[in-house]
């Protein structure tokens, strides 16, 4: 069973909002019709975005980190938005697991957005329908695009390659490998929605060095290597001791 989804590497996201801007741009000029903007250059802009990047500060000074957090529809396996829609406008595709809104059936009751615990859906007041991330379903199957561009717009836009697209049920896909190797996790697992989008956690790169490997100490950096006759191999510089 195919389940297309995104894997977002929070360790690489720099919070540039390129994904959000590219998503908005693609979905304003693509097949699904424009995402509306109200007073975009004014004091009180309003509008619909599928993808928003938020920023958080973790920890207390001086041990603080910055977390940049992009969030869009997670295309849940047990999507509550699909369960509650009275007209089946909100539906999950069987063939690839993408959750979509059929704008022609949506009556604008907003029940789906109440049911989504992540707040990924935004109501377009101008068109009167609920809209959300389509996983660029109009891009990924488009034969007119070159094959390496048949990905969501946000994935192509990311300058640090923090977004990975693929079939998370296929163990050989880049997305599935990223989840298993990068300790990918789901958001709010206790909500029972089984989201398909995964996030890779932030982690500091640490290298373990033992005392025998230290050859030269210079302030707080060491030059390590193994003495082997008169061949000296310098392996790593600037490591922290410990581990």
């Amino acid at each position, binding site marked *: 069973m195919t389940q297309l989804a995104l894997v977002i590497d929070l360790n690489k996201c720099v*919070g540039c909002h390129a994904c*959000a801007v590219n998503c908005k741009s693609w979905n304003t000029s693509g097949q699904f019709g424009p995402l509306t903007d109200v007073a975009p250059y004014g*004091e*009180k*802009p*309003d*509008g*619909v*975005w599928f993808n*928003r*990047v*938020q*920023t*958080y*500060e*973790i*920890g*207390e000074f001086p041990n603080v980190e*910055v*977390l940049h*957090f992009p*969030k869009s529809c997670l295309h849940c396996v047990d999507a*509550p938005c699909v*369960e*509650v*829609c*009275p*007209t*089946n406008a909100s539906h999950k595709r069987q063939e690839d697991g993408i959750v979509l809104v059929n704008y022609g*059936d*949506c*009556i*604008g*009751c*907003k*029940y789906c*957005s*109440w*049911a*989504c*615990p*992540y*707040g990924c859906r*935004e*109501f377009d*007041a101008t068109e*009167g*329908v609920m809209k959300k991330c389509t996983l660029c379903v109009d891009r990924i199957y488009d034969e007119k695009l070159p094959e390496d561009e048949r990905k969501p717009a946000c994935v192509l836009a990311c300058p640090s390659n923090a977004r990975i697209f693929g079939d998370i049920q296929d163990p050989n896909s880049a997305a599935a490998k990223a989840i298993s190797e990068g300790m990918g*996790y*789901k*958001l*709010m*697992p*206790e*909500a*029972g929605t089984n989201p398909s989008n995964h*996030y890779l*956690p*932030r982690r500091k790169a640490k290298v373990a060095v033992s005392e025998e490997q230290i050859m030269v100490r210079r302030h707080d950096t060491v030059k390590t290597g193994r003495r082997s006759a008169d061949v000296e191999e310098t392996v790593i510089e600037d490591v922290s001791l410990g581990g």
Partner: protein
Amino acid sequence: MHPEKSLVILTVLAGVGQGLFVFLFGADVLNPTGALPSGLLAAGAAAAIAFTVFGTMASFFHLTHPERGWKAILQWRNSWLSREVVLLPAFQGLAALYGLAAYADMDYHLRYLLGAAAAITALALYLASSMVYAKVRFIREWANVYTPLNFTLIGLASGAVTAVAMFELAGFDARMTLTLIRVAFFLLAAGLVIKALSFAYNAGIYSPVSLQTALGVNSSSIQQMDFGASYAHYNTKEYSFGAGQGNRIGMKLFILAALFIAPFFALSADYMPLLGGESGFAALFASVAMIAGAMVERWLFFAEGNHTQNLYYGNFIAKGAVNPLLQPAKAGSPAPKR
């Protein structure tokens, strides 16, 4: 959540109409054949339908595409909202047929059959309307047994009081009116207890969801620097009615007074005159007070609903909800209620 006025009006008025019909039919069945004037039955059915029609018209303002509203019946197998959309016109149709059967003085067996079907539909409609909200399982203020209980009890109580008012205005049989008043007393008492328990329950709610699980970050200190938007948008408007509004004790006391206590006293004022064979008119005042109180109650029900997406915008009202894994235990503090 941001309360939708149209949904407040819909659920309150439909609830009154459904309750009114249930007790109208109950009075019909409990009386010997022909004792209830057919005009009264037809007028009562019409009034019940009128309440639900006003409610339905209000709910249409909630939809941006009401012309597609008929499609909402398609998912009745999955969605409680879809079931509500099926049951509401079903109730209106059956109640209308009942009224016609009464007006045309048809055989009472047919009338009873139609009335029973309509009354059962009315009770099922209370369940469907309330389960629409109770099924949103992570809005803990809604996803509990008090939601369907409150919708049903408040609807039946306001319907019973409205039926009493109608019978008094029609100058109808004091004995049947007294029976209805006794039923209303019971419903008002039950409603008061359940609503007070619901207020107490909501004040100490435990939610397993926290910003830590919403982001997947295991730190007790997380502060938001950027909301992902430069101004208010759907996510900041639809899901909250201003954070930190406090306990709203005054509003809760008003609700209990207007919905249960004032009508109780009003009906009591009518009780003795009715025993003596005269009629009172305090039930009309009680009915109006109940509708006003029910509107405030329903508004507060929506406003109290705490959506988890507010975690991403810093206005998830925690109240008693703390993640015990990340908070140091204070000496002597009770464990959070589950």
